[in-house]
């Protein structure tokens, strides 16, 4: 388990026995390489486009749904990591969701997430494969493209006036199966 202050951990639903670890990296130089390793399965993690993330909680809510899917055998994608990316999206189209929220070859700001059993974390070994600068998650404030988030989650002006963007986003993630926008 990482004791790095820059890694954010949260326990997921107790029925899953899992926790999520999240870290934010900037100026990443080997995104292409990392992406290839994640796709081949040699690197067990989700790599997320940081500009679409408002707050770690957004990832936690999507990860929780993915982990429950894993433990109940109701996932719709190949692995819990693709399931996490798919759950971040409100679209029902799997490949589009993975492309949208996954990392592109030229992305420099990326969010890394691993699912771990309570007593061990694999995020350190994942982080060691990435050439970049580990920064506090509070940096998301400067990285997040709020306009793009609003567009991706279809949040209108009326809603933005009264509801926080995080609230809008997590509530949509939690209900994406049956609420269309």
């Amino acid at each position: 388990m990482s004791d790095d202050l820059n890694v954010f951990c949260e326990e997921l639903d107790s029925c899953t026995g899992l926790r999520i670890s999240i870290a934010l990296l900037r100026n990443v130089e080997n995104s292409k390489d990392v992406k290839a390793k994640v796709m081949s399965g040699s690197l067990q993690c989700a790599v997320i486009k940081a500009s679409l993330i408002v707050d770690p909680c957004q990832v936690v809510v999507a990860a929780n749904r993915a982990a429950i899917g894993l433990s109940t055998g109701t996932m719709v994608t190949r692995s819990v990591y693709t399931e996490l990316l798919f759950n971040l999206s409100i679209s029902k189209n799997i490949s589009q969701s993975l492309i949208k929220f996954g990392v592109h070859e030229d992305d420099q700001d990326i969010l890394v997430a691993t699912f771990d059993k309570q007593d061990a974390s694999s995020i350190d070994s994942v982080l060691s494969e990435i050439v970049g600068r580990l920064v506090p998650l509070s940096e998301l404030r400067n990285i997040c493209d709020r306009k793009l988030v609003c567009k991706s989650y279809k949040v209108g002006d009326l809603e933005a006036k009264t509801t926080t963007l995080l609230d809008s986003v997590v509530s949509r993630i939690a209900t994406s199966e049956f609420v269309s926008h």
Partner: protein
Amino acid sequence: MSTEFQGFELIKQGAEGRLFRGSYLGKPTIVKERFRKTYRHPDLDDYLTKERMKAEARAIVRSKAAGVRTPSIFLVDFERRRIYMEDIKPSITVKKFITDSLLGCSGEDALGKIKPVALEVGSIVGKLHAHNIIHGDLTTSNMLYSISEDGQITVTLIDFGLSHVENSAEDKGVDLYVLERALLSTHANADKLFPIIMQSYKKANNKDSKTVLDKFEDVRARGRKRTMVG
């Protein structure tokens, strides 16, 4: 109670289900769990429960889009029949806010204090109806009052268990009627509150407030009752 619910406290038990308060995913959380009704055919029970959970969550999300504050939703779990949502903190019910305001205050002073909240209540109900969201159980217990450090008042609407989305003037009229009845049965100054609420309701829902108010008057006149032929 199952062990997975450790750390959660039962706060309410009704005919349809139970409410728990605790922490989930690191957030203060309310869990609404619906009972299995064994008198119903199990397939029918599963189907109904799922449809109602969907309707409830859908109304909460749609209300946000309409510009009305509602709790964040963290998880909708059909298997366990639970909706996990934000516990709005710090807040008190609008019911308590009105009752407290009336304590040790002249009626006039209290009304001055309550007026901005009443206007906000009218405004949120108007916004809901402008977007065809019927709440189904508008009472001051289902509205939470909170105030920010800079004095900004927020009213958050909760308990969408009887909600649906439908463009029906009749249903909107009944919604207002339920609210008026709830006010009359709970608050001594309801006769002064309701007109204030309606004032801002009309502003927020000026598109069809005329037809809704006509329906509301109809419903009021017959007291939601129909004449029966035997």
